[in-house]
């Protein structure tokens, strides 16, 4: 129930995943078509692509919140179902989904409570996490007394509660303004630095994907599939990174890949070399 060290060096392995909704009916949708993806331990991966291309569906298959029609997902060397049972990932959504009737601290405690942690142990752990997201002063507040960005930080703290090796994040900053968003990105990178988590991060924002990730996975819709994977080598990020040549090169490479231009791979070669 304490810190889990990754058993294998592979955080996530998706093999031949298909997801077909309403199979055999008039409204059949192929949300995922033959998805193969490996995420190494400690890696930060972004999923980007137009609305409806199956990003959330892929995340939900990895989280064992829905079953793939074909293929399988492995998390931390075990089946997605086992990984969920053993709490090997933490999840954050676009809506913070905090419980109104609990204080901020008790929201962070929720996953620990479900695991049967003692009262004092989970209170201590929750305070530790709230320190990390710089919300310790708000431990006794109710979620609805917090701004959207603060609520999202609480949700991130909650997703880290059981100290899972993997974070699955579905547009967690999607509803935030640009300034808050950049601050949250830095905070997420810092947390990831401190904890060494692997992250799969769904976003609609190209700069966000490039700024955060080691690799950007580009998807296209109908049927949802991976069209390109772009390596980003920006080294350690700081405020200047957002204005660096390499950053713009990465943005261009992802944009071209999204447009379906074959130049994607040529641009990819330039990223990190400039």
């Amino acid at each position, binding site marked *: 129930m304490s810190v889990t060290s990754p058993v294998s060096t592979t955080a996530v392995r998706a093999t031949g995943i298909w997801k077909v909704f309403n199979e055999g009916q008039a409204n059949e949708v192929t949300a995922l078509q033959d998805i193969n993806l490996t995420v190494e331990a400690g890696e930060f991966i972004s999923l980007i692509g137009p609305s409806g291309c199956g990003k959330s569906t892929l995340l*939900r298959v990895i989280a064992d*919140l829905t079953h793939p029609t074909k293929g399988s997902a492995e998390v931390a060397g075990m089946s997605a179902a086992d990984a969920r049972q053993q709490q090997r*990932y933490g999840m954050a*959504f676009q809506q913070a*989904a905090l419980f109104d009737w609990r204080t901020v601290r008790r929201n962070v405690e929720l996953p620990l409570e479900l695991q049967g942690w003692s009262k004092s142990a989970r209170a201590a752990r929750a305070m530790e996490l709230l320190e990390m997201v710089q919300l310790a002063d708000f431990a006794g507040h109710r979620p609805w007394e917090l701004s959207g960005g603060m609520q999202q930080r609480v949700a991130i703290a909650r997703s880290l509660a059981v100290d899972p090796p993997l974070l699955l994040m579905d547009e967690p900053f999607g509803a935030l303004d640009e300034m808050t968003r950049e601050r949250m990105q830095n905070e997420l990178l810092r947390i990831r630095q401190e904890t060494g988590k692997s992250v799969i991060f769904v976003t609609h924002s190209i700069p966000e994907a490039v700024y955060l990730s080691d690799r950007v996975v580009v998807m296209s819709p109908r049927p949802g599939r991976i069209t390109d994977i772009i390596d980003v080598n920006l080294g350690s990020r700081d405020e200047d990174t957002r204005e660096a040549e390499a950053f713009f090169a990465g943005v261009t490479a992802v944009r071209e890949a999204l447009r379906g231009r074959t130049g994607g791979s040529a641009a990819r070669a330039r990223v990190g070399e400039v």
Partner: protein
Amino acid sequence: MSQSVTVTKAGMDAAPGRTARSGSAGRRFKRGAASAGWALLGILLSVIMWELVKAVGSVVPFPFNTSDTTMPNVWTMVTGAFQPEMRGSSTTVLQAVIMAAGYSLMIAMGGFVVGVSVGLMLAITMQRFAFMERGLLPFVIASQTVPLIALAPLIVGIGNRFSVGPFEWSTTYSVMFIAAYLAFFPLSVGALRGLHAPTATSLELMRSYAAKPRQLLFKLRFPSSIPYLVPALKVSAASAVVGTVIAEISTGVRGGIGRLIIEYAREITGQPAKVYVAVFGAIILGLVAAALVTAFDLYLTRNLPKEGPA
């Protein structure tokens, strides 16, 4: 019976009442004072109307009887409340009415507790198993279309033959049963909606934590159903009181306010004020029941947003 129809509607339409609640204690007090003021004004206007109708009725012929024997003056009612219940008896009419209302309140509360427990268990079962919801809900709704007047003698008849060991069924239990029968419905419908209230994201979150069904119920579904539960409880409490009074009348159980109204109505020619005092007693009984639920509501929702939802 029209009662069940209104109950059905109120139960169905019961929506989360968060938006209506005001913020600080100061504002709450001001609102309380304001509504007390409006209530007093309403009472005053009713008194004026009553006396006006009587005054006009004594000169112009009305289609109904406005004489002092059927519509006594308000002042006569007030003084009538403090007269002895019967010639030579030491209790006043008011005391008798309070005693009877208290007795009815006990029965109504018993029926309310039974009805709410049954309603809650039904709602949990229906939420947990979709086939239960499909199979049971039509019966739950149909149960409220059975006319109570027909049901009451039936329950008394069945109950009177019912005894388990030292336990003997009395007609009082029949009254309580009828109160419970009316109270369970609004609650089960409201609670069912409340248990279905959690957002898809909250449910996925709990699933990602591998929460057990019992944890899902107690940590998510129950707390999110409170905004639906509270209005349902209010309707259930009112139904329990109405059910008690009506069942007392139709079964003829002694001791409660329902029977008292019938008895006093027979004496309307001798002491016209008495029956009105009893009717007011029944009204105040309903208000007390509503106040009890409101107090419970304030306790339950003390941690929820007081201004509109986020």
